C-alpha cells in the first residue's frame, strides 16, 4: 500500500498554474494557460520523469523577476537540502551496490530467483496496463461522451475504488475466493484497485478535447470509429502515458496486495529477505533491480509520450463536445460501469460487510482500535504538516523565482518519490542503525520517509495556491514598512493557507494507507490502522481486521472526493 496515489491531484481554485500542476502530475496531459487572451495548450515536463526529460518546455512565468538575493538564496539552500535528503535512499542503494563488490553483486543478481521475480514483474505490468487502459478509455467515453443513464453517478463510481486501499481489495477477493493466487489474480486485483488512476486523467482529457477536430475529420469522410481511432485516441496519449506510469510505479511498490494472494514480486521478495535477515546484502541487490525497473518505467514513459504538441491555437474557446445519442444501445452499455463497480466496489463491500456481521460486537475492541486510530491520526498529522512544510521552499521558488535550478530540484523530488516505500525504508533503517543511531527508530526517521514519498502531493497543492497570490500584495506590504519575512508572512503565506491545508490532507491520507515503510520504520510501540489490519490478516483473523479496513476506507473518502472534484475543475465544470 505504499505510495497510494502519491502523485495526487490537487489544485483548490481555477487558475493557470493550478491547471499546470494538476495535469503535470496525474492528468499528465494538455492543459490550459489562459495567459495572453487566447487559449493555447502546452505540455511541460515538470512531473515524475522531468529529471530525465529535457527541461526546455514552456514555462509559465507568473511574476516579474525581482532580485531579493538573501531571501531566495536561503530558500534555495533549504530546497537543496530537502532534495539531498529525498535522494538519500536512491543514493544508498547505489552506494550499497558498490560496497558489496561486483562479484557478490553479480552472484546475487544473476540467479534463478531474481529471474523468476523479473518475469513475474514484467508480466504483471504488461498484462495490467493494457487492461486498465482499455477499461479507463471505455468508461471515460461512456461517462463523458454518451447519454448513458446516470453518467455523473457512474463517473463517481469509477473513482470510488480509490477509497479502498489496494491490500484491502485483495483481502476482499480472498474472502470471496479463498484459493485465489498467482499472476491471473494479481492482474485482476491490480486492475480493479488501480484503474481509476487512468480513468481520472483520461476522462479529464475527454472533457478538454476540442470537438471541432473530430467534426473536421468526419467532414473529410472518416467513419465514427475511424474518427475515434485517428483523432481522439492520439489526443489521449499523454493522459494514458501518465496514468500508466502511475499505475506501473504502484505495481512495483505494492506489498500487501500481492503478498495476500501469493504472487511474488521484487517488493514481496525484499520483505521476505528483510524478515529473515533484517538488512542483508541480498535485499540490497533486489532493491537495486527494483530501482532499475522504476527507471525503465520512467524512461519508457518519457519516450512514449513523445514531443508532439496537442495544442489548440487561436481565439475563442472550444465548445462542449456533443454527446453520442445511443438510443436503445445505452442500456446494454450500462453493463460496463455496472460490472466494473460490482468488482471494484461490490466485492469489497460484500466481504467487509460479511466479516463485520460475522464478527459482531466482539471485533470492536475499542481500546486497541482507539489507540491505533489515535496513533494513525497523530502520525498522519505530523507527517502531513512536515511534508507540506518541506514543500514550501520549492513551491515558493518555482512560482516566484522559476529557474533552471528550481526545475531541476523539482525533478529530484519527483524522482525520489517514485522509489518504492520498501527501498526508502530499507535505506533509512540501515543508515540510521549504522551511522545515526540517535535517529534510529524515531518519529523523525519515519516522517523523513513520508516526506520523501509524499512531497509531490503537498507541492502541487501549495504551488497552485501560492501562484494565486499576486506578488504585488507582498510588495505593498513591504512598502508599508514590513520586513521581507513579515511581508511574506502577512500576505502570501496567509492567502496560500487553503492550498497548504489541501497539501496536508493529501499527504496525510497517503500516510494513513502506507504499510511497507511504516512497518519497517515505526518506533517501538507504534501501531497504525494499516499495521494492525496487516497483523490480523496474517493470522487469518479476517473478521478482526474488518473494523480497521472499514476505518481506512472511511478516512480515504475525502481523498477520493478531492481527486474527483479537482478533475472536474480542470475542465471548468
Amino acid at each position, binding site marked *: 500500500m505504499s505510495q497510494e496515489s502519491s502523485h495526487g491531484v490537487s489544485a483548490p481554485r481555477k487558475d493557470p498554474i493550478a491547471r499546470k500542476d494538476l495535469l503535470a502530475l496525474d492528468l499528465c496531459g494538455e492543459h490550459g494557460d489562459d495567459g495572453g487572451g487566447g487559449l493555447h495548450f502546452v505540455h511541460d515536463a515538470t512531473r515524475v520523469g522531468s529529471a530525465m526529460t529535457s527541461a526546455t518546455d514552456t514555462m509559465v512565468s507568473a511574476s516579474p523577476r525581482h532580485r531579493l538575493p538573501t531571501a531566495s538564496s536561503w530558500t534555495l539552500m533549504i530546497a537543496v537540502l530537502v532534495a539531498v535528503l529525498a535522494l538519500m535512499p536512491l543514493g544508498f542503494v547505489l552506494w550499497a551496490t558498490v560496497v558489496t563488490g561486483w562479484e557478490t553483486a553479480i552472484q546475487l543478481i544473476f540467479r*534463478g*530467483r531474481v529471474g523468476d521475480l523479473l518475469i513475474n514483474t514484467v508480466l504483471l505490468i504488461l498484462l495490467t496496463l493494457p487492461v486498465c487502459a482499455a477499461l479507463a478509455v471505455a468508461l471515460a467515453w461512456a461517462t463523458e461522451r454518451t447519454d448513458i443513464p446516470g453518467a455523473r453517478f457512474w463517473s463517481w463510481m469509477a473513482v470510488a475504488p480509490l477509497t479502498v486501499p489496494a491490500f484491502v481489495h485483495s483481502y476482499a477477493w480472498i474472502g470471496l475466493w*479463498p*484459493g485465489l493466487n498467482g499472476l491471473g489474480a494479481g492482474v485482476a486485483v491490480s486492475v480493479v484497485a488501480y484503474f481509476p488512476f487512468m480513468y481520472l486523467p483520461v476522462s479529464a482529457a475527454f472533457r478538454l478535447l476540442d470537438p471541432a477536430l473530430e467534426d473536421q475529420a468526419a467532414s473529410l469522410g472518416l467513419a465514427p470509429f475511424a474518427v475515434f481511432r485517428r483523432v481522439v485516441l492520439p489526443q489521449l496519449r499523454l493522459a494514458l502515458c501518465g496514468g500508466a506510469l502511475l499505475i506501473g510505479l504502484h505495481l512495483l511498490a505494492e506489498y500487501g496486495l500481492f*503478498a495476500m494472494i*501469493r504472487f511474488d514480486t521484487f517488493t514481496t521478495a525484499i520483505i*521476505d529477505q*528483510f*524478515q*529473515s*535477515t*533484517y*538488512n*542483508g546484502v541480498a535485499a540490497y541487490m533486489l532493491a537495486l533491480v527494483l530501482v532499475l525497473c522504476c527507471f525503465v518505467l520512467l524512461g519508457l514513459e518519457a519516450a512514449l509520450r513523445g514531443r508532439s504538441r496537442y495544442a489548440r491555437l487561436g481565439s475563442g474557446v472550444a465548445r462542449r463536445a456533443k454527446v453520442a445519442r445511443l438510443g436503445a444501445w445505452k442500456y446494454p452499455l450500462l453493463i460496463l460501469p455496472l460490472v466494473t463497480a460490482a468488482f471494484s466496489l461490490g466485492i469489497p463491500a460484500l466481504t467487509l460487510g460479511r466479516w463485520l456481521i*460475522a464478527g459482531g460486537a466482539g471485533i470492536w475492541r475499542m481500546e486497541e482500535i482507539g489507540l491505533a486510530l489515535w*496513533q494513525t491520526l*497523530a*502520525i498522519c*498529522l*505530523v507527517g502531513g*504538516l512536515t511534508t507540506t512544510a518541506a514543500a514550501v521552499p520549492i513551491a515558493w521558488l518555482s512560482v516566484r523565482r522559476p529557474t533552471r535550478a528550481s526545475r531541476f530540484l523539482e525533478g529530484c523530488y519527483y524522482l525520489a518519490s517514485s522509489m518504492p516505500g520498501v527501498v526508502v525504508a530499507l535505506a533509512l533503517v540501515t543508515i540510521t*542503525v*549504522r551511522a545515526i*543511531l540517535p535517529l*534510529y*527508530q*524515531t*518519529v523523525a526517521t519515519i516522517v523523513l520517509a513520508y516526506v520523501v514519498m509524499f512531497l509531490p502531493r503537498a507541492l502541487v497543492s501549495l504551488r497552485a495556491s501560492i501562484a494565486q497570490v499576486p506578488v504585488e500584495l507582498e510588495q505593498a506590504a513591504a512598502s508599508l514598512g514590513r520586513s521581507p519575512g*513579515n511581508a511574506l*508572512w*502577512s500576505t502570501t503565506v*496567509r492567502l496560500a493557507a487553503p492550498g497548504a491545508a489541501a497539501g496536508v490532507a493529501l499527504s496525510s491520507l497517503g500516510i494513513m494507507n502506507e504499510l511497507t515503510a511504516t512497518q519497517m520504520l515505526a*518506533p*517501538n*510501540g*507504534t501501531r497504525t490502522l494499516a499495521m494492525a489490519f496487516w*497483523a490480523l490478516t*496474517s*493470522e*487469518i*483473523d479476517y*473478521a478482526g481486521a474488518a473494523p480497521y479496513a472499514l476505518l481506512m476506507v472511511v478516512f480515504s473518502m475525502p481523498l477520493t472526493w478531492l481527486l474527483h472534484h479537482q478533475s472536474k475543475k480542470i475542465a471548468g465544470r
Partner: protein
Amino acid sequence: MRTSSLAGVAPALSILAFSVIALSSPASAQVTDSITIYNAQHEGLTKEWAQAFTEETGIAVTIRQGSDLEIGNQIVQEGANSPADVFLTENSPAMALVDGKGLFEPVDKATLDQVPDGFKPGNGHWVGVAARSTVFAYDKRKLNESTLPKSMLDLARPEWKGRWTASPSGADFQAIVGALLQLKGEEATAAWLRGMKENATPIRGNSTAMKAVNAGQFEGALIYHYYYFGDQAKTGENSNNVLLHYFKNQDPGAFVSISGGGVLASSKHKEQAQAFLKWVTGKGGQKVLRDGTSYEYAIGKGEASNKALVPLAELQAPKVEPATLNNAKVTDMMTAAGLL
C-alpha cells in the same frame, strides 16, 4: 494584524508539538519501571503476557513486533545500542543466533529452575517459554489413517507430488528443517529438500497454508499444531475440513520446537527484564498458555497445557538440542534447493 497572524498559527504549532511529544513518548519511554520487548512470538500471546505482567508488577511493557530472524539479526546489528530489554521468539534458531554473538545476559537461576531440562540450552543464556509441535494438517475428506504419511520423510517421495504445502520462508518451517538436519544429517536433509521442491507448493504463512488445505487446494500442510486449535476456538471456518496428524515415534516430523526468551546484555533494565522472564516461565505466564487463546504448550515444571491439546508427553518427540539448531546452514541448503 501581527497578533492575529500569530494567533492563527499558534494552534497549528501546538498541535505539531503535542503530536511529536505524544508520538515519541512510546519510543523513548525510559521510565525506570518499563521494559521493551522485541517480540517474534505471536503478538496476541505476548500481549496477554504483557498485560497480566504489568497488572501484577506495575512494570510497563512496550512491544516491537517482527519475525524470529528479522529481529534476531536486528539485535545483532544494533549490538550494544539495542533498545531491547527482552527478546522472545517462536523458535530456538534465532535465540542461538543472538547467543552466538554473545549478546545475552545469563538468565537468573531461579527462572531456569522453573523449566525442565530439554527446554533450555546448556549454558543458561536463554530459557524456553513455550513449545509447539510439528503436525501434518490434512483434509479429512481426502486422507485417512491408512493413506496418511507414516513419516515426514515420506513427503519427499514421488507419490506425494503436488499434494502438500508448507511455508518455507517462515522461521517455523526453517526450525523443522533444522531439526531434520540435526537428526538425519546433511545428505539426507538435502535429499529431502530436493524432494520437497518437487512435491510441495510453497505458501506464505502457516495459517494460510492450513486455510488452503481446508479449501481443498492441497491434501495436507506441514505446520505447527496451534493454528488448528486457534481457528477451531473461533469460527472453525478455516479448519472445519481439517484434522491433525501427529507423526510421533521420534520422527523428525514429531519435532517439538521451543520458543525462547532472553535478556539482552545491553539492557538498562535487567532487573525488570529478568523479572519478566521469571514471571513468564512461572505460574502466571504458564497459566496464560493454559487458559488463553494461543494453544501453545506450557512447559514450566508441573504446569499443564490447554486441555484441548494432545499432552506434550504423548507426542514422542525426537531429542533435539535447541542451542545448536543451525539456521545459517538451513537457509543455505534451502536456497541451494531453490526453496528460498
